[in-house]
């Protein structure tokens, strides 16, 4: 009844199921683990019609009555064939066998995920954990963010900075989803390591060009990361011991083929050596990740997944102030101060897959995501032992509550309709400071709330040579009280001294709301079965901004929703591309061009004071910008030698657009953004030497990032000061780096459960000292200019990986 109602409601106009057509539907999974396979293809040899499994391994394919040979394939698996006589609708659970598990590097299937000729959407990259693990990594730790950075159109400000920039977008313009839960801080140690444990990950999809209508809320890209479900057949484990981390993943059935679990943990352990070094004794610095998932195959039509991620960086630092021997204050004793610093992400996702009919699939997700940090400081004694002993705690948090039903209607083999509604409640608590010091007030800027409601629909259709994916999303965002809004004298720049008054909004009041249509369009025309041209257009709105004025995002940077003073960011992108596969599909080539505009970006006034600032708008300047570029990519996915090579040319500029000329940076002229790197060349290769040894290499060459230099000097009260050029008027030197790795897999008997390998390598092989920044300063009262390199030496690593 319910499914008839839904079908009628939404698709009465599209019901074109002819009497002679039948549907095969079901899931495709790994025979050994029961893990569903995302993006596997199934097609009929006779008609050439096919389908691809969705994010949950589900497919639906409408075929004419009669005999069909069904072919199922997926990268890294043996092709599967089945003869079928279509006389009725059929449900299948297809199980694929891993191809040559020991020789992981040699991929033999005819399918590969790197070809850009099949997908309608442009500029989308799929990475499997295997791809990620093959890239030589800093300290040997497979890293999703670093893997993303090997792809065209993706760059970062520099080594060790958190996040990544996609086609000229700020780091806060990436929607990073882990099992659909948005992640607000995707790195440990500011930016050196990503928080995603590759052992717990099944699939990574980056959308940088065409972004399907079901995604929204961030303006430049979507990084959709899916966790594994856990082995439904047998208990398994895998793990590794590295220089920095140790990790362990356990998975298995609780009830065979019905209920499975996966738990994966990772912890850094370099702090265990701290007690050996006197100067850092008593300090604690570590970080950890814990991924967990429960998958319940209730029945043919229902599946339930519960997954969570918890990860944190924890620091406890002790500063000791030894008494001065010549001090006049004779009562001095050794004093110390402890600083605790912690930031963490926590997410929980509950998903229900329901198959209404062979043609209508639903996923309902309820998601909670939280990012928070706490900084606390305590003087010795730990409490109010005197009127100057002090302690304070500073807490801040971002929370999301999300509910999103998503439906896919498989009208026929060529037409798919996807629709749903995203509902997100945001809660931002910028700062809560409490202290026991008499002179410090308790500060609580309150909680800013935002509600985003976004219904969407997309229509995917394939004709003979022409394919379309057209979508429309409508997003409504409301900034909800209680909150205090300040008003400013309109004839003056916004500063605390131009405040004319303020208003306290009550709980539930809509302080300001925005509603916007976001069209998405992708077109593909097949010149042949291995050549295609593509066109795309996207409009994206983003209702939250990361307020950060530093090179590396800091844990206490603030997320701020659009509201009375701050407008939502709008990005429009047009793109065009050409994809080409060689005849044997050994090589895949693509060329993409794009032009992108940014409206209502935030820029920071010179010397912006963002610290505990209730009137943040006074430190911000409206800005707009544009970015354009061309990306050339090539993949080789077969043979002993595999890899990819890409080159990007891009330009990213912005300008501030304050009504008050004196406020504008660089006199209101265009200037390059911090991460504008016109030329980027990346090369990733893997070579299988023999059964035991394989080797990998990564090389990158990038134009140096823009920077601001000191240009002059003067003196005040005996101190020397600098005067600086326009913002980003100069550029650092070009950067380049080579990393290599060797993997040794000892010969293993097939009947032995324990399998292992060793990975050795060197990061920054030829010790290139890439400039992270150049700055001028005084040293011994002499004015000097310095270049700072974050990594200026080769860093060797070794990791032992095992599976059982």
């Amino acid at each position, binding site marked *: 009844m319910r499914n008839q109602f839904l079908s009628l409601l939404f698709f009465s106009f599209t019901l074109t199921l002819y009497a002679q057509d039948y549907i095969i539907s079901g899931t495709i999974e790994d025979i050994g683990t029961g893990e569903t396979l995302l993006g596997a293809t199934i097609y009929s040899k006779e008609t050439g019609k096919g389908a691809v499994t969705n994010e949950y391994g589900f497919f639906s394919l409408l075929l004419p009555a009669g005999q069909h040979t069904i072919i199922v394939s997926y990268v890294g698996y043996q092709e599967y064939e089945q003869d079928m006589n279509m006389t009725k609708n059929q449900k299948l659970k297809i199980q694929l066998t891993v191809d040559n598990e020991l020789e992981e590097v040699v991929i033999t299937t005819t399918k590969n995920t790197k070809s850009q000729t099949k997908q309608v959407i442009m500029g989308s990259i799929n990475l499997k954990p295997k791809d990620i693990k093959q890239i030589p990594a800093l300290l040997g730790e497979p890293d999703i963010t670093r893997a993303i950075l090997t792809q065209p159109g993706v760059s970062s400000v520099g080594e*060790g*900075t958190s996040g990544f920039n996609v086609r000229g977008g700020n780091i806060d313009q990436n929607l990073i989803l882990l099992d659909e839960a948005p992640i607000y801080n995707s790195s440990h*140690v*500011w930016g050196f390591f990503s928080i995603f444990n590759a052992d717990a990950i099944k699939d990574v999809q980056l959308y940088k060009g065409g972004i399907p209508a079901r995604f929204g809320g961030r303006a430049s890209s979507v990084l959709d990361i899916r966790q594994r479900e856990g082995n439904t057949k047998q208990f398994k484990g895998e793990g590794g011991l590295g220089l920095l981390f140790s990790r362990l993943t356990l998975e298995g059935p609780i009830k065979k083929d019905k209920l499975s679990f996966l738990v994966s943990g990772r912890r850094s352990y*370099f702090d265990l050596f701290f007690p050996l070094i006197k100067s850092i004794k008593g300090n604690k610095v570590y970080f950890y990740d814990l991924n967990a998932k429960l998958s319940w195959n209730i029945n043919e039509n229902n599946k339930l997944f519960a997954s969570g991620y918890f990860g944190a960086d924890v*620091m406890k630092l002790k500063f000791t102030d030894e*008494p*001065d021997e010549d*001090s006049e*204050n004779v*009562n001095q004793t050794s*004093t110390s101060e402890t*600083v605790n610093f912690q930031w963490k992400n926590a997410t929980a996702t509950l998903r229900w897959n329901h198959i209404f009919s062979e043609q209508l699939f639903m996923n309902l997700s309820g998601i909670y995501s939280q990012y928070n940090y706490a*900084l606390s400081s305590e003087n010795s004694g730990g409490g109010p032992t*005197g009127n*100057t*002993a002090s302690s304070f705690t*500073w807490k801040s948090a971002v929370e999301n509550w999300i509910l999103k039903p998503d439906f896919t209607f498989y009208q026929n083999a060529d037409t798919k309709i996807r629709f749903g509604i995203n509902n997100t409640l945001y809660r931002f608590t910028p700062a809560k400071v409490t202290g026991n010091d008499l*002179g410090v*007030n308790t500060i609580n800027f309150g909680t800013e709330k935002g509600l985003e409601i976004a219904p969407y629909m997309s229509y995917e259709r394939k004709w003979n040579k022409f394919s379309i994916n057209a979508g429309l999303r409508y997003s409504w965002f409301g900034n909800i009280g209680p909150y205090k809004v300040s008003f400013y004298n309109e004839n003056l720049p916004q*500063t605390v*001294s131009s405040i004319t008054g303020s208003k306290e909004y009550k709980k539930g009041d809509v302080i300001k709301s925005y509603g916007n249509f976001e069209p998405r369009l992708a077109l593909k025309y097949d010149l042949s079965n291995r050549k295609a041209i593509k066109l795309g257009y996207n409009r994206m709105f983003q209702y939250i901004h990361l307020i950060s*004025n*530093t090179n*590396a995002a*800091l844990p206490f940077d603030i997320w701020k929703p659009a509201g009375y003073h701050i407008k939502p960011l709008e990005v429009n992108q047009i793109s065009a591309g050409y994809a080409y596969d060689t005849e044997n599909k050994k090589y895949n080539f693509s060329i993409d061009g794009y032009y992108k505009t940014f409206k209502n970006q935030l820029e920071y006034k010179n*010397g912006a*004071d963002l*610290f*505990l*600032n209730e009137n943040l708008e006074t430190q911000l300047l409206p800005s707009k910008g544009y970015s354009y570029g061309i990306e050339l990519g090539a993949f080789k996915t077969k043979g002993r030698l595999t890899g990819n090579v890409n080159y990007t040319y891009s330009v990213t500029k912005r300008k501030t657009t304050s009504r008050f000329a004196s406020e504008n940076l660089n006199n209101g002229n265009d200037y390059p953004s911090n991460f504008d790197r016109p030329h980027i060349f990346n090369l990733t290769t893997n070579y299988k030497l023999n059964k035991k040894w394989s080797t990998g290499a990564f090389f990158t060459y990038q134009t140096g990032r823009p920077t601001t*230099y*000191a*240009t*002059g*000097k*003067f*003196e*005040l009260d005996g101190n020397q*000061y*600098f*005067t*600086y*050029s326009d*913002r980003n008027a*100069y550029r650092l030197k070009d950067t380049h780096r080579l990393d290599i790795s060797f993997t040794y897999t000892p010969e293993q008997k097939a009947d032995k459960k324990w399998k292992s390998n060793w990975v050795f390598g060197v990061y920054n092989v030829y010790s290139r*000292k890439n400039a992270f*920044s150049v*700055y001028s300063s*005084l*040293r011994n009262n002499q*004015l*000097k*200019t*310095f*270049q*700072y390199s*974050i990594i*200026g*030496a080769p860093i060797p690593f070794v990791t032992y990986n095992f599976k059982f």
Partner: protein
Amino acid sequence: MVLKSKKTLSTLLILITLCSCTKEISVDVAHEPQTVIFGELNNLNQQVSINIQQTLPLNASGSFQAINNAMVSLYEKTSNGTTNLVTDDFSVNQGVYISNQAISTVVGNKYWIEIVLTNGARFKSEEETMLPVVPISEIEIDSEFDDIINVSFNDPEGAINFYKASVSLYNQGTLVSTNFIESNDVVFDGNSEASLGIDLFQFQEEDDETPLPDYDAIEVLLGNINFSSYQFLLNQRSQIEANEDAGDSSGGDPSQLFSTPPVSLLGNITNTTTNKTALGNFTVISLSIVNQ
């Protein structure tokens, strides 16, 4: 607090980025001379002093080039809106213009300077109000950290206040060290036991090779200032900190990771000829003094 956190972060990063390094380089930059104006008017019935100079290229041997032939005028606007020229009678020596009379000020009046250079460039500082004095109630060396002095006062309730607190150390009458801190009243608005901690020494740390200077007298000033001047002090602080961070002589400088774009010392003075903000600031400050 934020300073401490940044130091903490840097300390940590040193552990992690043992492989980082800093080297001295030379860069080729174009220098365009700019005028720098710096002055302060207080409530203490003193002569007003204004420093006018021109920036020098980085490779110049000196760091001070005086501008000696400027016309300087100090104006006031009374609460009923009348504008008066307070004085344009200044003596100049090496770019330092000192009024020939002591200037008496009135709380609530606005004050600013106007300057004309011989090349015709005109400058005007923002009209800043002489605010009421916020008296220091107590100064005390921190009982935990002996190189910090705590300045206590009663922060006026309801008003947004900005402070510049400075400390000068003397040894037998000679100034040996000076430092300042700027603050808004966010964390102690209306608090009758508001307090600011100032480091007695600007750059030095106790483990530095050079010993800290001896002193036998401390003078502490608490100034109630206007927003624009506070903003200027923030810029100045940002440069002082950048210089301090770079004071470390060897190894990496991980604080660069968290550096914000460098800031020129732009304040409340506008070049009215080009309508651009000029380097420097003219601060109107109302001071409370305690000597110990």
